[in-house]
């Protein structure tokens, strides 16, 4: 991808700038779709209709909402720490956006083919905590601060089970690169990690139940990492007004909003890459069948986005199913249940891979 762009433009700096901006081309339509899905799924789960006015079945609702947000006054309270207050949404979004650098959308397009992709993803997604904490602190509002503190506690503790699960996958694949992980699960869907990986043998069948456990653990902890219900303690609207984003309005709020949805896809994409073959098609490619080679990467983008959005939909579905947990329950779930299970799972998977 870089080479093609470089050959086209001839300037490396511009090439990198364009490559860096490419995920935005995905994020903006995706966020529109996700917000629409969120509202529609919510409505239909509650036996309502949801937005119906703007466009066909309310499909242009988010454009209307966005225009409203743009027009809004940018309110900054007197006692805010203005520098940090203005920086926080940008930092939050930057953290969410940086994760897209290592997501392999297809075999032809990876923002950065870093060999330590998973490591980078885990590390950079913690930048969101800094942004949220910054926003909560600089708002000078008790609700914001409470939300931010909860968020920090939650994200830091839930990173442990998710990292333990990632570690067990890394143990099997032997690589930290997300693209390589995806490539290892090529072929049909039974080659996916959730079905024990590509190698046929005893280990594959032994791995399947533990892979399911690992998947459940990382999915639960990824929900907590992106502050989704039932773990939406940081912005628990019935307790904390809107948590860390209470004091924000207009475009700055939109940034937090965008970051939240971008993050949702990032963790869904990580789950997809780790367990569901990443950009690999479950049934082989039409492009290979017809002998059109350039079609394959496009198909891969399609499969990657479809799988990712499917998990986003499951997140939305869970949000409208489960009530919010209490703070102590949240911590108990992480430290008393997920981490021990993840650890045991890690050890068992390690032993199996040794066979």
């Amino acid at each position, binding site marked *: 991808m870089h080479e093609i762009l470089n050959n086209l433009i001839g300037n490396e700096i511009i090439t990198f700038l364009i490559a860096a901006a490419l995920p935005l081309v995905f994020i903006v339509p995706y966020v529109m779709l996700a917000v629409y899905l969120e509202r529609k799924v919510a409505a239909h*789960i509650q*036996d309502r*209709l949801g937005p119906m006015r703007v466009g066909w079945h309310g499909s242009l609702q988010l454009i209307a909402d966005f225009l409203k947000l743009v027009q809004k006054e940018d309110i900054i309270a007197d006692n805010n720490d203005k520098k940090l207050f203005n920086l926080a949404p940008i930092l939050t979004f930057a953290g969410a956006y940086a994760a897209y650098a290592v997501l392999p959308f297809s075999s032809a397009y990876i923002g950065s083919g870093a060999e330590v992709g998973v490591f980078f993803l885990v590390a950079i997604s913690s930048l969101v905590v800094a942004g949220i904490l910054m926003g909560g602190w600089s708002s000078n509002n008790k609700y914001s601060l409470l939300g931010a503190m909860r968020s920090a506690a939650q994200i830091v503790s839930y990173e442990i089970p998710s990292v333990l699960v990632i570690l067990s996958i890394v143990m099997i694949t032997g690589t930290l690169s997300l693209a390589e992980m995806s490539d290892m699960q090529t072929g049909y869907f039974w080659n996916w990690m959730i079905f024990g990986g590509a190698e046929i043998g005893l280990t594959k069948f032994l791995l399947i139940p533990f892979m399911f456990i690992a998947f459940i653990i990382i999915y639960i902890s990824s929900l907590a990492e992106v502050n989704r219900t039932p773990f939406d303690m940081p912005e628990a609207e019935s307790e904390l007004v809107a948590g860390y984003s209470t004091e924000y309005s207009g475009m700055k709020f939109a940034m937090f909003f965008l970051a939240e949805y971008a993050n949702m896809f990032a963790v869904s994409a990580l789950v997809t890459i780790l367990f569901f073959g990443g950009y690999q098609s479950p049934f082989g490619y039409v492009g290979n069948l017809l002998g059109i080679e350039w079609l394959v990467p496009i198909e891969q983008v399609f499969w990657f986005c479809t799988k990712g959005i499917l998990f986003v939909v499951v997140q939305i579905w*869970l949000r409208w*199913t489960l009530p919010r947990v209490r703070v102590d329950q949240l911590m108990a*779930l992480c430290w008393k*249940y997920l981490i021990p299970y993840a650890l045991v799972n890690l050890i068992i998977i390690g032993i199996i891979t040794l066979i």
Partner: protein
Amino acid sequence: MKTYLKNTWEGLYTVFVGMVITFKHMFTRSVTIQYPDVKIKLPERERNRLYVNMDDCIGCLQCERACPVECIEIETVKSLPTEELGQTSNGKKKSLWVTKFTIDFAKCCYCQLCVFPCPTECIKMTDIYEFSEFERENLIYNFATLTSKEVNEKKSNFEKMQAEKEAEKAAAEAAKAQKAKAETEEKEVNNQESPETPGTEKKE
């Protein structure tokens, strides 16, 4: 350990059950309607905005008296005997000009008590319930069909008639009095035979 595993299982299982329930609800028919486009059919005896058919109103004030919140205001003027107001649809003769018939829907409590006493069934409930206004004054509905000019005319007609009647009455009384006086005077004249003109003037 047993409770620990049981908790784990219950946590996962109950989440799964909940998800199945919400998934089913995703495909059930919505219970809400697209209100301004689609409206629920109102029950047969719904009570909403009142309507007065002024062709049938005889100005009997029964509805005004029945109203518990006094939101109906009616003023009537008697018609001249020469004027023909026509009949109501159920054959009652109209004899009053209804110069003012207003209902203040800001006060109205939609109790329907005004509907029952109406002898001509001209005040009734409609199915209109969307009549919100920005100004409270706009909720005062005027049902009287007469223009202010006509009202003034009717009023002056009535006053004129009244005045004429009074004048007539006065004249009649005066005539009566004069007659009576003349008679008494005659008697006096007959009795005393002494015409005292200033005295009679005083009496008049």
